[in-house]
């Protein structure tokens, strides 16, 4: 549902059904709502059978990359000759994205149950849930819920009498966007600086503590119990467009809409239905100018692209961007695109781990050029320089933070060039850069 708003008829409410229902937070409350049936069912199934069900469902990673979840699980060694680990990525830090926070705040047991099922499927006895340091409230509810699940036998040395040990451990981040990158997250758990690792080796071969590891996003894992309860065919049937994108997706909508919030829609739902019907459209007298659909790391879309876009992995790509984590930043006609793009470049410059030269130098340089354009000191060749820099920052580094900084700059110059030129020519008054 469009939490904090009531559910809209065009939503398909699965994961968000109990957002806002404080009774659903407790173990007993969750069991009353059908909780932990899927885990019991999974414990009676073989690892392969669980993995096949998830493969069949078409579930893909909800953290941004969209990698098929069942396939990822199947990369884990069949024989367990050393510890296997699950990492749950709850480091939600992508600007525009705030869905995992609601899952943990309102339905912590949904995540715990999903993690336990995933542990079983990948042959892990221990799972780490890495929660960003700023998420004090989700931490509190997750901590309570894990204690309750242990007390009830849903976690622990002998889960529901199955003889299987599954332990979940919360690990608190300490302020670093990059720790949402999967290998940086593992380094962070290991007590290191959060620098992404060179791949290969991929986590399934050598991940956390160099052991076979699967890492999944909170929303991905929370969908798993529903798939086991209702069947892969049901989940696969939740599809309005491309059959490669199935199920529901939580879309966090923020910015200049009447009703920002988390909306859950079937894959393939038109973006304009979400913005103009579910979210109540723009504020009175305003028109839509731009949308960054997948969290801030993806290309900016203009109004024409929004109008024809279908919300699934392929649909957003067809309109020049990416679904990413589906944190949708909606901008109306009052938005100074140059200023907001500058603010995004500041974000990436601030959050670069500084490991790769192209990123360490490129994000800072890009930010400085954006600032001088806004300060009325831009040079006529600055747009070409930004594009040249962006080219050198794309596809050249260990992780994609550098690419993410380039995406809004390149698409911004392509689609809103006039706004940049107005600052360059002095037609537009210099904007204050700092508060």
């Amino acid at each position: 549902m469009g939490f904090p708003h009531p559910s809209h008829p065009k939503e398909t409410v699965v994961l968000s059904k109990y957002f806002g229902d404080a009774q659903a937070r407790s173990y007993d409350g969750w069991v009353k709502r059908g909780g932990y049936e899927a885990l019991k069912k999974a414990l009676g199934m073989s690892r392969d059978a669980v993995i096949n069900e998830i493969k069949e469902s078409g579930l893909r990673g909800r953290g941004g990359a969209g990698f098929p979840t069942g396939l990822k699980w199947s990369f884990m060694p069949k024989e367990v000759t050393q510890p296997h680990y699950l990492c749950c990525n709850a480091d939600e830090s992508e600007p525009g994205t705030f869905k995992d926070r609601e899952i943990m705040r309102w339905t912590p047991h949904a995540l715990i149950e999903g993690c336990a099922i995933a542990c079983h499927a990948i042959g892990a006895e221990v799972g780490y849930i890495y929660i960003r340091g700023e998420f004090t409230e989700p931490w509190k509810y997750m901590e309570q819920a894990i204690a309750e699940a242990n007390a009830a036998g849903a976690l622990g040395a002998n889960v529901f009498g199955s003889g299987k040990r599954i332990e979940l451990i919360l690990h608190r981040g300490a302020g670093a966007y990059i720790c949402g990158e999967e290998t940086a997250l593992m380094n962070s758990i290991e007590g290191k600086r959060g620098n992404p690792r060179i791949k290969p080796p991929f986590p399934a071969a050598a991940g956390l503590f160099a052991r076979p590891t699967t890492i999944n996003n909170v929303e991905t894992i929370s969908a798993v119990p529903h798939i086991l309860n209702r069947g892969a065919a049901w989940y696969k049937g939740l599809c309005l467009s491309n059959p490669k994108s199935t199920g529901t997706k939580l879309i966090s909508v923020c910015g200049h809409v009447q009703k920002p919030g988390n909306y859950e829609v079937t894959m393939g739902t038109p973006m304009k239905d979400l913005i103009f019907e579910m979210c109540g459209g723009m504020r009175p007298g305003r028109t839509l100018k731009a949308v960054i659909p997948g969290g801030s790391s993806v290309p900016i879309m203009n109004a024409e692209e929004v109008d024809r876009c279908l919300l699934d992995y392929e649909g957003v790509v067809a309109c020049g961007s990416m679904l990413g984590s589906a944190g949708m930043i909606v901008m109306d006609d009052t938005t100074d695109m140059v200023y907001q793009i500058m603010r995004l470049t500041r974000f990436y410059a601030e959050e670069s781990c500084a490991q790769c030269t192209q990123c360490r130098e490129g994000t800072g340089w890009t930010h400085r050029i954006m600032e001088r354009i806004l300060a009325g000191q831009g040079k006529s060749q600055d747009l070409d320089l930004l594009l040249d820099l962006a080219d050198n920052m794309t596809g050249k580094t260990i992780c994609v933070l550098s690419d993410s900084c380039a995406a809004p700059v390149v698409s911004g110059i392509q689609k809103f060039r006039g706004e940049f030129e107005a600052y360059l020519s002095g037609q537009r008054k210099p904007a204050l850069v700092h508060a």
Partner: protein
Amino acid sequence: MSATPSGAATTHATADYQQVFTGATKARLEALFAKYETRQACLLPALWMVQEARGWIPEQGIAEVAEVLGLTPAYVKGVVTFYTMYHTHPVGRHFVMVCTTSPCNMCGAEDVVRALLKATGCGELGATSPDGRFTVVETECLGACGFATPILIDNDFIEGVTPERVPGLIQGYK
């Protein structure tokens, strides 16, 4: 489970430094050792414990953590300075983080910053108010973009802050 290498003279054991890892805090840390394959993996939790106890992470705290976990102080410092939530300098009794990344920025976050700097008496970002109560900093995305503008005061995550709400909110923190 002694983590002290060879009982050598410790760099943190100065007269004015009170150890953090004694009694209940030591027990809390040692209980974590069993949850990870390596002692080093307890580094972020141990640093949180120092900050909880001291309000920031002084050099001696870094040295103490290094000793307890069998690491070098230089290594620990490298980790401390990577993460923005660890304070390497003393801060006000209440630490205020305001999100000003684009989604909040578009919805007026910079006005919230100005209101906070005025109401707390900090005047400048990063500065501590003359009464020692507050330090206000801008932070990158707090992950509550639909509830602009979120702020974090100590462990209290507050959504939908507007300049008008600021004076009232601040009153609750002495």
